[in-house]
């Protein structure tokens, strides 16, 4: 086998290990689903009346608020998955097993690739569940099959970007606790974008931030694909952000992994 084939097979071995962990200890994976589902219920039933009235006539075109907020919350599921990656990587790093992997003649990236792919798969499953709940409580997307595929592609790309960043956070965090806290701002960013309310309802400074941060174009693209609202150039910007963040996260993680272990 060539070294590339080894790298792929090592990554798949690591992926199987991570999926086995997730299957055996589902608490972490469940928390990834529970948070967005709770928010979905909260924003639909508790805040939905007031928020929906406030933005009717806006981007939803007078539709129900669930149709506005569901794409935003579906996207936030990806950020929840990121936290679990950071914790998973950090826990591994504080145990002896990583040093064992380092003394094996295996691809250096395999350990991280396994973690990241495992997390992306779990995140996509969580996203599917959140979409299911959204549909059950009245979310009515009008997307075609192609638009659904594009939406899934975008979500996968976003999950990949966030997961590589989180892998880096997990590597530089000293304890699992800090690994779980550091990605917090990441989970908050969608709130400061157009996930819950349109950005033009925000004060000037915040609106400026909201329009230029990566989550807003991603949310606008997802909403456009699912609900048929205007996408404009958000699609390109979103993809560029995702690819850029993936590359940053990947190279950062690799260099952090290359440095001395914590023990």
């Amino acid at each position, binding site marked *: *086998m060539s070294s590339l084939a*080894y790298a792929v*097979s*090592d990554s798949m*071995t690591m992926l*199987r*290990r991570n999926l*086995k*962990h997730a299957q*055996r*200890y589902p608490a972490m994976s469940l928390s990834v689903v529970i948070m967005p589902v709770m928010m979905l219920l909260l924003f639909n039933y508790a805040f939905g009346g007031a928020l929906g009235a406030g933005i009717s006539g806006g981007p939803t075109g007078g539709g129900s608020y669930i149709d506005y907020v569901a794409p935003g919350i579906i996207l936030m599921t990806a950020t929840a998955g990121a936290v679990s990656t950071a914790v998973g990587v950090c826990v591994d790093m504080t*145990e*002896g*097993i990583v*040093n*064992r*992997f*380092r*003394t*094996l*003649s*295996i691809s250096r990236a395999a350990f991280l690739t396994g973690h990241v792919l495992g997390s992306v798969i779990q995140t996509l499953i969580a996203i599917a569940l959140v979409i299911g709940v959204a549909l059950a409580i009245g979310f009515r997307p009008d997307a075609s099959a192609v638009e659904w595929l594009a939406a899934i592609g975008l979500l996968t790309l976003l999950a990949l970007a966030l997961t590589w960043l989180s892998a880096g956070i997990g590597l530089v965090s000293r304890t699992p606790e800090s690994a779980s806290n550091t990605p917090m701002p990441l989970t908050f960013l969608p709130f400061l974008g157009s996930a819950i309310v349109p950005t033009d309802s925000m004060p000037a400074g915040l609106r400026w931030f909201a329009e230029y941060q990566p989550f807003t174009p991603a949310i606008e693209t997802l909403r456009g694909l699912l609900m048929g609202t205007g996408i404009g150039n958000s699609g390109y910007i979103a993809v560029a952000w995702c690819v850029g963040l993936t590359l940053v996260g990947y190279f950062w993680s690799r260099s952090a992994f290359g440095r*001395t*272990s914590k*023990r």
Partner: protein
Amino acid sequence: MTAPTTAPILTAPPAISALGLRKSYGDKVVLDGIDLTIPEGSIFALLGPNGAGKTTTVQILSTLIAADGGQAQVAGRDLTREADGVRAAIGVTGQFAAVDNLLTAEENLLLMADLQHVPRAEGRRRAAELLRRFELTEAARKPVVTFSGGMRRKLDLAMTLVGDPRIIFLDEPTTGLDPRSRRTMWEIIRDLVVADGVTIFLTTQYLDEADQLADRIAVLDRGRLVAEGTADELKRLIPGGHIRLQFADLTELDAAARHFGAAARDPEELTLRIPSDGSIPTLRAVLDVLDDAAVRAESLTVHTPDLDDVFLTLTGHGTPDTTTEMAR
């Protein structure tokens, strides 16, 4: 308490050789020029107290960290230029059990087999064999998180062996184990050399462990090797040894005592203690004197100082943690 005295095979290339290895963390010098030559198929023990630099040495030789200076070859490959080649030849069992707690013992072994690209069927066979060899078959399907310290250490070593390494690094393999698990581990380590012909590099802070297992011992103190040799050679480095002669009765004892000026006579025990370095020439001289005088001794025993004495003499400070560990 005698160490195995396998003569090093001088013709074979060494399994591990190092020249002037250095490492510091900031101002703290951890290794200050270490030279090593370890023949293939032998057990080498790096003996030293906590903080002497044992783990750092293992980490450098197993490619985990880079040395600041010096060079080393492991399995005939250069440590820095051919790190992957070194990794393919070695197995490492660190100080802290490097097992995946969330998997079962069997899954841990299969994970290692997959990562070392052992074909699936062969991997299963090796895993089953290792589980049997280390008496873990019954616990094979249980998550490792439920294992005792001794079981984890055995599994850890089994994981190291899956890839069939030629050189095995064991960093304090019995630290924290109960006496019984410790003895089991010793047997396993001895078996590895006998059955598989591997080379073992082990670190220990237990003097009796080095004495029990190692063909050669190097004493590491504050980043420097202060002595190297077989256990017996090390013991001979320092004074305090003696030859003890046992006699049948007082007449024989007194007859012998007249011929050994410096000897200590013990009429109660009917023994004579003659100061000696324990070497063969002195031993022969003692026997010659007895022969010439036609005195019959019932038995003769050679007492060399134990490694604890050696350590104290060589380093000028004791090993407070381990002095009670000595069997004698």
